């Protein structure tokens, strides 16, 4: 195990941020921590990356005790936060050389590592420019490249693709996959559920300082009933007629949609459509979309307490 946490607690004054968290992250995997704003994701990352200390609980990272050997832990980890931790007054190359010096690499080795990373992250042309002239995606790549100078075995990525365009996001995802292929462990927090779905081997959902679910993306989706077909009507009359005949279902009068629950199999889909055709004979002008449960459903089901969007066509 790369990260083993037992009973991690942290509170700021009376406000309990983490109320006893147990995490197990296997070596060479991508672990995603999901949760609404204020759930304690960033606090967890800050504790695990030695920035702040926990009130209680035991944590071992890369075989070292977090509280007793913080320097050994720091030597094994790399952190790329949602803040951009690059030096704006140094060029891209100088930023990497600074990191190489702080990792006590020899001058020659540092230059070689910097050149390799610039090439790998497609920053060669921008190497002599300052990050102030970089685009958001380039900045994020430089940020990650700086983290990689020290060859960390575990990398914390705190919302790595926030604010990036789709192409840059996919580039970043590919970089992350390549890292894992090299044996690096990734601890990811993200707001984007499709990102966790795309990348993560293991997902934990954090809500109000507690882990409410943990498992692979498929496991999580399976335990949530969210699959349905959605019927889109052209006018309110058609909606009214079908809703009246078919009885109980989720209905949205504003969007003119009806949702019929299914388990996602062809059999249940066919049964629902047959029933629609047979009982109402109103299939003309009705659009159909099939919705399988995704992590959004998991997220809303598990963290549903103050959710104003519940029942809003989901």
């Amino acid at each position, binding site marked *: 195990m790369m990260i083993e946490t037992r009973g991690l607690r942290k509170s700021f004054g009376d406000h309990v941020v983490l109320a006893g968290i147990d995490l197990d992250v296997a070596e060479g995997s991508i672990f995603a921590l999901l949760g609404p704003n204020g759930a304690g994701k960033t606090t967890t990352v800050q504790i695990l*990356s*030695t*920035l702040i200390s926990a009130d209680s609980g035991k944590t071992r990272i890369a075989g070292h005790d977090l509280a007793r050997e913080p*320097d*050994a832990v*720091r*030597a094994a*980890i*790399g*952190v790329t*936060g949602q*803040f*951009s*931790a*690059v*030096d*704006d*007054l*140094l060029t891209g190359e*100088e930023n990497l050389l*600074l990191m190489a*010096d*702080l*990792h*006590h690499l020899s001058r020659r080795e540092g230059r070689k590592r910097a050149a390799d990373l610039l090439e790998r992250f497609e920053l060669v042309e921008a190497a002599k420019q300052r990050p102030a002239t970089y685009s958001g995606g380039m900045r994020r790549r430089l940020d990650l490249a*700086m983290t990689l100078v*020290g060859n960390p075995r575990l990398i914390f990525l705190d919302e790595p693709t926030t604010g990036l365009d789709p192409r840059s996001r996919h580039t970043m995802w590919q970089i992350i996959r390549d890292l894992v292929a090299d044996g690096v462990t990734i601890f990811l927090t993200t707001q984007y559920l499709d990102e966790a779905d795309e990348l993560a081997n293991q997902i934990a959902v954090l809500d109000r300082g507690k882990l409410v679910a943990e498992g692979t993306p498929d496991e999580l989706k399976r335990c949530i009933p969210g699959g349905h077909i959605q019927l889109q009507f052209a006018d309110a009359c058609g909606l009214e007629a079908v809703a009246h005949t078919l009885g109980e279902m989720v209905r949205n009068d504003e969007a003119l949609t009806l949702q019929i629950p299914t388990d996602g199999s062809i059999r249940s889909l066919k049964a629902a459509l047959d029933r629609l055709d047979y009982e109402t004979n109103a299939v003309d002008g009705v659009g159909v979309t099939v919705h399988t449960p995704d992590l959004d459903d998991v997220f809303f089901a598990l963290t549903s307490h103050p959710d104003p969007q519940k029942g809003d066509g989901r």
Partner: protein
Amino acid sequence: MSNFSFALRDSATMLRRDVQHSLRNFSIVFVLLVPIIMLLLLNYVFGGAIGAGLGGVARGSAYIDYLAPGIFVMTVGSGCAATALNLCTDMAEGIVTRFRTMAIFRASVLLGQVLGSLIRTLISVVLSGWRCSWASGPRRVPSPGSRRSASLRCSPSRSHGWGRCSGWWAKRRREPTASPSSSNYWHTPAAHSSARNRCQLESAGSRSFSPSRLSLTRCGGCC
């Protein structure tokens, strides 16, 4: 031992970063130039008015001898302020957070900034000290009434000026070092205030301290 050498290396790395910073943002310009501009402003532009306001005190010693220590304190102060500002920027940008998650000698982050600031401030103090000495360089006293010697008095001798730029040093030299009977002796600040302005006045044949007559342009001609 290896811990110690790592600490040294980390501090040197941070110092290099700080020097690179000060060459690229404009803090070096502020730290180096502001004291000098203030010195020139307070000496040449407002110097006459303030010097006259000192009254009896000014007669005991040169105005520049009161000004110079103040400029030095201001130089050191603005150096400290620049360091605080740099550190604050670092903290806000998140790079310090990155340093804190790395296995480096933690004090080096601060140490690099402090050493860099020390170097900048030293350069600045030396520069403004040199400027002070230039402004208060020793003069030769003329034989009374001679216009030719009036111009002689005004030629600044920079080689002897450095030691006289601060007040405490000036006090040590209050006593004339050469016999008054000698026609050419090195004059002291005790006898002449704001020497260059004075020489301007004297060559103009006036003894009154009028700020308008102590302007930089009038002084420029004889100095």
